[in-house]
């Protein structure tokens, strides 16, 4: 048994320490936003935030996140009250099939917490680990810029929920 801190709550998890974080999030905690894409850390669809940084949960064993704060997309906002990054993706219609979108949003969230006004080039460099087979890249770029503007207005910033 180990304690896993996800979205501000402690969870008792009965899993081997070498289990990928993604498996525990999806199978044990039913947090299904993070997706299983390649399983090799090469597509980015499993991205979550650990202690403020974007992490590929499919290649991150539990033993590396013990005692750290894990945030998934479910921890950012809800359908009723979406976080700025979720609002921005919806307003820019930055998804087609949507499989990569949760990972993209988590990467964007981590970037904007560190760098509230990233340049276009910085966003492109940051999103290098992410694949989108639908080709929604331009809308994703717009969405990240829009999220930066949304977060700039104090009330809209919900990044306090991310630990």
């Amino acid at each position, binding site marked *: 048994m180990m304690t896993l801190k996800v979205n501000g709550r402690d969870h008792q998890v009965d899993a081997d320490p*070498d289990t*990928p974080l993604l498996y525990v999030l999806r199978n044990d905690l039913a947090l299904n936003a993070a997706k299983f894409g390649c399983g090799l850390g090469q597509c980015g669809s499993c991205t979550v935030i650990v202690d403020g*940084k974007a992490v590929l949960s499919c*290649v*991150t064993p539990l033993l*590396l996140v013990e005692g750290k704060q894990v945030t998934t997309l479910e921890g950012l906002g809800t359908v009723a009250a979406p976080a700025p990054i979720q609002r921005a993706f919806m307003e820019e219609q930055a998804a087609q099939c949507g499989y990569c979108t949760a990972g993209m949003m988590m990467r964007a969230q981590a970037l904007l917490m560190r760098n509230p006004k990233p340049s276009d*080039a910085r966003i492109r*460099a940051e999103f290098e*680990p992410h694949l989108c087979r639908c080709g929604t890249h331009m809308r994703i770029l717009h969405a990240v810029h829009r999220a930066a503007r949304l977060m700039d207005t104090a009330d809209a910033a919900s990044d306090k929920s991310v630990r």
Partner: protein
Amino acid sequence: MSWGQQAVIELFWPNDTGTKRVNTRPNNKLNSGMPGQLRIITGIAAIVLFAGATAAFAAAWQPQIAAMAPPRPDTFDPDIVKRGRDLAAIGNCNTCHTVHGGGNYAGGLPVPTPFGTIFSSNITPDAETGIGSWPEEAFVRAMRAGVSRDGRHLYPTFPYDHFTNVSDADDRALYAFLMTRQPVHASPPANQLTFPLNYRPLIAGWKLLYLRSGDVSADAAKGAEWNRGAYLVEGLAHCGACHTPRNALGAERVNAQFSGGDVDNWHAYALNDTSHAPVRWSADALYAYLRHGWQADHGTARGPMAEVVGNLATVADSDVRAIAVYMADVSAAPAPDRKSPTDAVAQSASTDATQANAAGAAIYAAACASCHEGGRALPYGGVNLALSTAIAGPDPRNLLNIVLSGVGAVAGERSPIMPGFAASIDDAQMVALANYLRSKFGKRQPWNDLDKAVRDARAVQATSLAAGDATAESSQRGKP
């Protein structure tokens, strides 16, 4: 080398083993001698000093070469320009003379050295800030003697100690290539050097000690391919600039050629018979590595070497093969601990490193093994770490850099990629993992001071990230 240079070296310079030459003669000569003798000695000393100062001035002073109006691009023969393009790729010119996001060949890249930071110059044909007003004669002098058109000495960060070996025809082609690039008006920032290193005439003294002309001569016994490789490797490609260790004055140690050096927080591996590659490099393996950026029995080019391989992509197969043939010969006889790939992998399976370092073993099993023991060869799987030079080598930095930052995809190429683990692995876990890999796959004593190496590698990774946030484009070299 002249007698005078040899004498200067022997008098003032420690030899390469690091032992200082000590004058063991009794030093009471001046006091015990007669006044007449003293005068003679003083007189001789004065003459020597005067002659030395004159010689130093003569060596330090270089004439200005008159500026000219930039030549029109169509005055150059397109065939020569094209040859110059391939030569510039072999010379890796753009790696130092281009900042990511800046104009091609417009300079401005900070090159950190033990003496301070030197910024690369603008070598586009801009008349004011580049080399647009340079006649060919001035370009050739810069390549051969490290002197700017205006007569200033250039710092040897510009590897003219290798470029002395470049032929007249190749210098002409490089000139034609550079003079037909897009002119960019851009001056590099001022060098950050402290006195007296910012006093350029001192470089003349460095040149007296270390700049030798034409130290590559053809070896008729070796064949055309080997000789072509020697010409490229020792000259324009300047492989030794990174792969040869440097002495206290920043010059390559000639008697330790290719025994491994430093570049941008990476270790440039030894390429001679002291190489730590678990499997000996062959000419074929080196050719494949230089051609594609990876080789199944050795692994992947990354850091500054990835840029070298990227530049070689446009170079003719024959030249890449010549480089490989020559370097494979330089690496000479295999060290006794060299194995075949299968032996190396088989041997790593039979240890008890797992029990000694449970934390490292668990991280490896959970985070690394799925790719590195997935049974897929490069470039689609990870290299078996028993074949890794980074793990077998004497310096942990390359392993740490790669685990923290990963290996980025190369546009348009099938190439290995690896996610970076900087965000998920902490320093203690990184130390445990590195120690485990070293003992399990490297079969060697633990690295010294690994804690500090991990902290340093982390700091470099964080600095690179912060620099990327601060500017539109990263200007850091060696981004994996």
